[in-house]
């Protein structure tokens, strides 16, 4: 697997978009179901429109922020240890 810090900006952007979409579909699952059952949801044009609208929000994250979020996984995995586990556990 490619090291997180070596990933190009495009790779990071693609991974972030996929994470964003996954997150957004999770948070708004109920609403998305309603949209899909609405009258004006015609499958051929509507689905790409919907996906495009959802993923637009990635533009609100700067490339650095995207990298930070995408690479958090790798950082946490390497540090999944003593200090990491008790992180903030007692506040």
């Amino acid at each position, binding site marked *: 697997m490619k090291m997180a810090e070596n990933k190009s900006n495009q790779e990071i952007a693609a991974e972030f978009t996929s994470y964003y979409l996954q997150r957004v579909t999770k*948070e*708004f699952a109920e609403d998305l179901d309603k949209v899909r059952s609405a009258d004006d949801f015609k499958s051929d044009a509507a689905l790409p429109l919907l996906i495009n*609208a959802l993923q637009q929000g990635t533009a*609100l994250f700067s490339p650095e922020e995207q990298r930070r979020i995408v*690479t958090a996984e*790798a950082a*946490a995995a390497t540090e999944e240890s003593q200090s990491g586990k008790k*992180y903030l556990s007692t506040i």
Partner: protein
Amino acid sequence: MGKRNSHGDFAGGPRKRQRIVHEAPTSEDVHTSRQLRQLLAFDSDGVRARHGLQSFKLFLDELLAGGDSHPDRLQILREYLDSTTPSESEDEGSRVYLSDIMQTWSHASQPSNDNVISAVVVALALLLKLLSQKLELVPVGLGICRTLLQKRQLELISRALSADKGKAFIISPTLRLLKEAISFDGGAVAKPIFRARAFTLKSLARNMGIVHIGEQDEEAAKRPSARTNAVLFLLNALKFLHPEAKKELLSQRDVVSALTRDLKQDPPYLVIQLLDTLRDYVLLDDKVPREAKSSLLGAATLIRISSLYYYRQNTSTEPSLPSIPDKAHDFLMNACTTPSCGVLRQDMGLYPRETDPDATLPTAELEELGLEAIVWMKRFKTEVPVRNYVLSNFLQNLRPWSSTKQSELVTAIFKAAPELVADFFINNKSFTFEPKLSTTWIGYAAFLFNAVMLPIPDYFCRGSGFSELPPPTSIVIDNILPLPLNQKVLVRCLAHKSKMVSFFATRILVLAVQKLDTAVRMHQDLSHFNKSLWAEAARRLVDEFCQRSPSIIDMINSYRSISEDDILHREAASHLLRLCYEVIPQVALMAKFDVSPFLETALRRLAKREQSEDPKDIALSLKQLENLLAIAGYSPGMRWFSTSDSITFSPFTALLRVYVEAPHGVALTKVWRVLDFVAMEHQLVPAYTAHPGLLPLLGALQSLNKSSAKSVLEIWPFLDKCLTRCATAPIKYLEMMQTIIQEAPGLPSQGISAAVISPITFAILEQLPFAEKAANQGVLRALKKFLPTFIGLLVAAGESRPLLEVALSKMSAHFTKGLDGLPSTEAAYELLAEVKHVDQSGDSAAKKTNPLGRSREGQTITHIDDEELQEVLDITDSLSVDNSALTKWASKTVDELVDEGYAVSLISLLVSEHASIRKEALINILKMAAKIKQSEYDEKEQVWLLLSELAETAKGGGVGDGPLPSPVVAFACHAVRMLKDPLSVLYPKINGFLTRGPVWSLDRLPLVDEVLAEDPSAVDSYYAQLSWLLSYLLDSLRTDQDLELFHKKRANGPLLERLLALAGNSYMRLPLRIQLLKLLYRATGIKGGSTTLTTRFGIVSWLEAQVAWCQDRDGREARLYEALRRRVWETCDRERVGEWSRKGAVVVVEGENET
């Protein structure tokens, strides 16, 4: 469209085309060229003629289908063509190829035997098609083409083309024939065909309207219609005609209109060919004049092409063809956004068509009325005159909310012609954003998101610099929050029961506030000439924005209503709130928003995270936390050091824990910045720039965390108490420090200023007895480890070592076995450096943007170093004292005294630091004056007067007490040089000055007002006078007393201020500006010079403005200003300047150095 033939119509009734039934002609196989000749020989009998032509057609069909597999048949054709080729002796113009066929054609048209005519043109079209593939037969083909261009044939063609609409069987092959002819041999005869356009293009527009009608059988429907053939002919013409002919062809409105009229019904291959040909041979052909392109691509054509977005393509029957909607999209993107395609016109960004952004308005009017003085300022609220009216019309026919591609097209057009944004939303009345959870609403939202995300045009006007007047506020706001996004609708969106609606609205608002920020900054740019006018426009803009956007309360309520688990939504909403605090604080602070509970929630959530949780989610939550921290930093009501029942520690300590205990790899730079800021604000640490702030504490805690994580957990309650106490009563600890200073060896004499130390140390010292009393061994053990490291780091941070040693020994008393000594200096430095490195490494992104918000990314300015700066700006002191001047002059003639500088050298001695030299010089000056007066020197009177006045002034100024002020001496030196030449520009002014009185004021700089404020004595001599003045002033600035004269308050303002204002004259040339810079450089070399320049004359901002002004024009000059700014910073009293500018100067200069 061609005029309809009304013959045989039933008046008023629906017209039906008569169906024509063709009898199939007979035919026979062709075996010899002789047989072919016989078959095609002229025969007046229609049936026999058709028989021959049909046999020929089948013969050609076979040849065309079989390629080279019929060499014998090709031979037959070749022989036949040879036999019919006219002899070369004939005149070129009258040579008729295939004379038999031509005769048959002509004969058939007399009684109008349509079947024969059709058979002839079909055969000819096929023959040309075949010949175009056989290189050796091309000359024959060209001969046939030329034959077609003879008058008789042209008339036949014209008659065929204008045959009744129902006779597609004649029209179609004729068009095919023309198509083959115009493209034959690379368009060799295209030009003459076009020249004969009265015949060849006859009824073209009408013919492009003849399509298959429904009731035809399937076989017929598959055949290309007359329209298809006509379009193909026209496209071939566009391919092979020269640009001027294309222009003329495209200027025929009916043809252009007919070309795209039924586009949506055309077969896919035709549509593709049409789009490709128009693109390659019209749009992208640079030789085709712009007006030709414009006449092709009117709004109607664009609308018809855009109807292809809905083209129904049967991909199962023709899978290899590209998608038509995609093709049309690419075509439109190209056509509408490339200026050379003839549609897009250059606009002026946010300035509408009827405005003149560079108009000069009377200053008095502008001062009195402000923005009201600009008549057009409020004119564009309901209508915007645009240059791109074609695109404006076209845009109204698109439905960007219904398809991603159309949204992309509209956005691209907006980007290419920003004037259209406001116009589009004003005209699109049906476009409402009333929230409803539907695909259309989401499409609206996505489109609006794109529109708001568009960048603001460069300098608003797309020029190379800002205009004189600001753009109309209504247009700017329409670009930031387009009309459908009004307050009422947005409030409803934020409070909508479906959270996705609120999420979409929040995202758009985030973009809008960011865009507002950019727009306001552009209004505040330093290079604006009329700053107050732009500032007023910026205020209006913010007001308008606040009227359109939901109130901060609505935003806060929306944030409150989001579930804790919806981190993406929470992040967006907190981002929005944070931006409001940053960009429109005056509005944001109106709401009483206590961020602490949200901060607690966020911290608690981070604390509760489960093992299974996605690390990306945590990183996202951290981003939300950052937003909240920023809001907390901005809101004055934030209680950083108060505890409540719901939380164990104060928010500050809780945040400190987040920082210290965060797993490695999670970037927490912003958290560190907030902690550092709060610590400094609450005087936990000394607040001067060189001090590393909270780093020693963070370093000590991290070091403890590394060695024993348990100890850190033990230490928090104690530390929280110390931090809270220190923050609530810092004075108490400062007093405590003073007491301890008395005890420290050697310190009292140095005073408190030398004994800087973090107040938190004393808070810890004060609290230790209580910890000792509580006898919690865990805490004491942890403190035993922690305190020496912490104190060691404070020493490494540059705090007073003796004082800290006293503190440590006092602390030691509370531990049974005492504390360890301080760690070695190297170890402490290393640790401090490590923390610094970690804290600042993740900070690269933050540093790219300095706090003024201007991105420095991509700038590769090579700095001018100090040495280079010195080389350019430092010139030696010309009043340098040469004592030999006292004796040298005596032996010289008067001419030599004046012209060769002996007089000047003598005068310069008046600034000597030795009283005897000055006195000697004075006597010698008087002697010299006498000598000059008695001489025959032309200007003896004036020079004598000057020297005498100087001597009088020196006497009165007490030449024995100290050097004469440099300005007086420098003036005398520079005046002598002017007096020797009556034609010099300053001759009258200097004489005027000399006759005014016998003694000069030592408090003033002679002749400054006369040059700066009065008219130049000779026309066009202003800059010459200025140059003289600047060089004399440069020599006048040598000591701190001189500098005082420069910044002394005067009736017209301090001299330095007036000199700095000179640079505002954009006509002033570089050499004069450099002279000014030399003067400033000289001032920076004088004690206190840089500090005075910074605090009293705002030199840092002045230099910044100069950088901004010349950055685009002269990079080197800009670098010179920057280098000078660095020099000012390096030579000033940083502490005082830092205090004076509340660290603004530090940020500007150091931010610059980092790039």
